[in-house]
């Protein structure tokens, strides 16, 4: 089973839930896809064994072959290229690496080089195989890094994905790699709004969702009403616990700072399996 742990916004406790789910799971692959702020290592304490660069192809110019016709810049929808008389400019960080400019160039003046935008780290935390992507500072396009991490999901075995926060193409990429998406939310008006956006996005890609309410003691009534309307199971509620926040600050996972939730997290695994079955039925 492949589970993506996601949330419509940051700060809901997504990584706290994902890491402790993995710790209770035992043997599994943990993919930290929150590449713009990966921090699952702080709670899982993996031993990193190796890392690999993530690169994207970016265009460069054979100046002697360029007529400065501007066809490449006209084509580039990211406006990463600018051509003015006698000068060809590429703005690497705007480039989506689509390869189009080199195809449209009538004189074949454009070639491509690999440019590093991030890295993927590989390691283990006990029985958990740990893979984490990180986008380099200043880079704008996280998807290639996320895709390289998701390649490690493989066809066999259980996978837990710490998804990028928000409802955007990064989150969708992670959700599409999963059989079920666990949406971590908190019972605030903003939380409910972001949850709604995430649920609608998951409908589009046809992935079953389950909801975990964090800080449920703030009053989860509205989340329950919404979930019932949408036919989405609320699989677990966790109250706002000081010990968990303190544990996080000292890099201790939820299952250690609040061991009373160990049983609940085991139950969560079964509830997620049921969510997938019910969708399939």
């Amino acid at each position, binding site marked *: 089973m492949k589970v993506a742990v996601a949330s419509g916004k940051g700060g809901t406790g997504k990584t706290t839930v994902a890491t402790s789910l993995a710790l209770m799971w035992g043997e599994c692959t943990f993919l930290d896809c929150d590449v713009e702020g990966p921090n699952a290592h702080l709670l899982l304490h993996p031993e990193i064994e190796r890392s690999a660069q993530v690169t994207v192809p970016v265009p460069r110019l054979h100046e002697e072959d360029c007529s400065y016709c501007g066809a490449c810049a006209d084509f580039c929808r990211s406006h*990463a290229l600018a051509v003015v008389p006698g000068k060809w400019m590429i703005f690497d960080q705007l480039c989506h690496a689509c390869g189009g400019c080199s195809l449209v160039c009538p004189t074949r003046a454009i070639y491509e080089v690999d440019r590093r935008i991030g890295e993927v780290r590989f390691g283990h935390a006990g029985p958990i195989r740990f893979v984490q992507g990180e986008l380099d500072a*200043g880079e704008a396009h996280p998807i290639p890094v996320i895709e390289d991490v998701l390649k490690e999901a493989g066809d066999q075995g259980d996978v837990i994905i710490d998804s990028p926060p928000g409802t955007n193409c990064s989150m969708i990429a992670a959700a599409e790699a999963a059989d079920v998406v666990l949406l971590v939310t908190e019972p605030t008006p903003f939380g409910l709004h972001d949850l709604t956006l995430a649920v609608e996005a998951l409908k589009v890609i046809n992935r079953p969702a389950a909801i975990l309410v964090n800080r449920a003691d703030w009053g989860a009534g509205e989340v329950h009403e919404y979930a019932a309307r949408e036919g989405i199971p609320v699989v677990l509620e966790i109250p706002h616990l000081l010990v968990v926040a303190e544990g996080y600050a000292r890099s201790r996972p939820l299952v250690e700072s609040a061991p009373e939730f160990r049983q609940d997290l085991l139950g969560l695994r079964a509830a997620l399996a049921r969510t997938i079955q019910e969708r399939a039925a």
Partner: protein
Amino acid sequence: MKICVTASSEGLQAPMDSRFARAPFMVFIDSETGDAETIANAATSAGHGAGTQAAQTVTRLGAEVLLTAHCGPRAFEVLAAAGVKVFGVEGVTVSEAVDAWKAGKLEQLENSDAAAGWAG
């Protein structure tokens, strides 16, 4: 010589818009004849690439001078490469800006004033 002024509406009497790439219109003025031509700025919806796109519009339409207030670093780089001089002015109409430039009252901007993430 052609001068480009960033504007919030069309024509010489339009108020200036101080943002380069995000201004809804660009007014191109021929400094000898006084003729003006307004074009809608296609870059306003271009996200991060707005600056490079707007800068190329300026150079392709043959302007040698740009009058605006805030210009992002990428746009500035493209304009500089094309030899377009950028002068800072805001809070006046397009024709007042041109008059101020003709009178030599405007200061040439040597650097972008906006951070890289700011698509100006």
